[in-house]
């Protein structure tokens, strides 16, 4: 039999094998060549059934998110913000649809819990992601309540921590997507700034007393959001220093200082001097974080000013 006939028979059998037939079924069309083809088909069968492990879903999601961020980044670099969309599609609606398709595709791919932005953002006409107001509101309410609990010396409500974590998870994802719109960025910076202040207070309470589990959880969530937002967009206050430096100096200072302020009273002759001293010291002893010399003193300042947020933050770190 001619060489190319054997070649053709092998190809036919191989295609049948790759389509799911067994070796014997694949050979059935060429019984006369069975002895010659069988060992080859057995080897091919091993090759074709050697199942390499599929990539994990978590990895696929991560890789896809990075790929999409790289695509957006490339387009921004090439065409400027939104330029691609205007250039490629006749209408901005088409671009929105394209991104929605990607979102839907990703959602179908990842299942319910891995949906990249269905629950927390909408896609704007220019393709940017707009963080849903309920996410920001949830974060805002939760951080306000936690702040209030700390100030009143009350236990932190676990529900508030849960809400904060949920909202922060969404914020982190949104920032990491690299395609948040300008107003969402400002809102995110603002909420991260507020959380940074609460973080300093959490550090103080943790240093002074036995830390609550809720406090630790809240701290972890806030640290995550502050780190991500700080890196990607910047936070107008000193980002990392308060977290690291506040703790050691906090605990001993505020409590002992008010006591001496009361003692000058018994010396009646010294009234003019004594009336100045106590008021200064008493006011500085009021908020716990203000007693610290360096980073702690920065916190109340930022708390007082409504944190003017830079809109010129880099859109893609």
């Amino acid at each position, binding site marked *: 039999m001619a060489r190319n006939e054997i070649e053709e028979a*092998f190809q036919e059998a191989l295609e049948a094998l790759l389509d799911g037939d067994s070796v014997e079924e694949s050979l059935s069309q060429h019984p006369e060549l069975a002895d010659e083809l069988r*060992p080859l088909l057995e080897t091919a069968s091993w090759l074709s*059934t*050697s199942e390499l492990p599929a990539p994990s879903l978590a990895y696929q999601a991560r890789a896809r998110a990075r790929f999409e961020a790289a695509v957006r980044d490339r387009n921004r670099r090439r065409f400027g913000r939104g330029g691609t969309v205007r250039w490629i599609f006749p209408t901005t609606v088409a671009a929105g649809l394209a991104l929605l398709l990607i979102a839907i595709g990703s959602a179908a791919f990842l299942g319910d819990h891995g949906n990249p932005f269905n629950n927390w953002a909408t896609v704007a006409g220019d393709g940017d992601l707009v963080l849903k107001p309920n996410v920001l509101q949830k974060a805002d309410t939760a951080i306000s309540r936690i702040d209030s609990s700390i100030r009143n010396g009350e236990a932190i409500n676990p529900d508030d921590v849960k809400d904060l974590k949920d909202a922060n998870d969404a914020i982190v994802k949104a920032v990491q997507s690299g395609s948040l719109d300008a107003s969402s960025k400002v809102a995110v910076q603002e909420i991260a700034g507020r959380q940074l202040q609460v973080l300093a207070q959490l550090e103080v309470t943790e240093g002074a007393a036995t830390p609550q589990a809720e406090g630790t959880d809240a701290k972890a969530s806030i640290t995550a959001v502050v780190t991500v937002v700080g890196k990607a967009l910047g936070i107008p206050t000193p980002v990392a220093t308060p977290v690291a430096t506040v703790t050691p100096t906090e605990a001993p200072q505020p409590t002992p200082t008010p006591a001496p302020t009361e003692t000058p009273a018994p010396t009646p002759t010294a009234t003019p001097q004594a009336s100045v001293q106590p008021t200064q010291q008493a006011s500085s002893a009021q908020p716990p974080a203000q007693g610290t010399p360096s980073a702690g003193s920065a916190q109340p300042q930022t708390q007082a000013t409504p944190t003017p947020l830079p809109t010129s933050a880099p859109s893609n770190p």
Partner: protein
Amino acid sequence: MSLSPEAQAERQLVDAAKRGEEQALSRLYDTYFPRIYRYVLARTGDVSDSEDLTEEVFLRVVDAIGRFEWREAPFSAWIFRIAHNAVISYRRRNGSRPRSTPLTESLPVNIEGPEDQVEKELLLREIIEAAKVLPDTQQRVIELRFIAGLSVAETARALGKGEGNVKVIQHKAIARLRDMLAEKPRVPEAPKVYGKKRD
């Protein structure tokens, strides 16, 4: 030479991706991601490194697709060339570094019993090792056809060769692999579970 409808569709997609259309890039990613991953995994044998390399390949694609020219090679050839180069650089970089997640540790658990599974894993390792001894072209045909799951036509396009040529190379490669594996003490028999239907 006229293009097949499949090749024409891919050409349109690639042209759109070159212009920066995110949807087109996304579709190319969907098409090639699993293949590139399998290809890289087969060549490195390390899950963790394959994940990093596959990501790296696609980031390079994003950076370089604007410079892709049709006259040089088909897109599949181009992307698998990037993957090939990534693996080469990886080998140079890592030298004898021990693998962090060896392939055999992450092979899927199948319906077969543990003994069959171990046997299969060992043979897969042997096949991967044996394929490394093949001449480069044969090796690439085997990887593209059986590991990356490309058809003969796709493999031909990827390698810039004719389909007939790919068939011949494939035949020779399988025959040689068979000889090499037969020289070993344990000659593979046909597996109990045969190839699944391709989509």
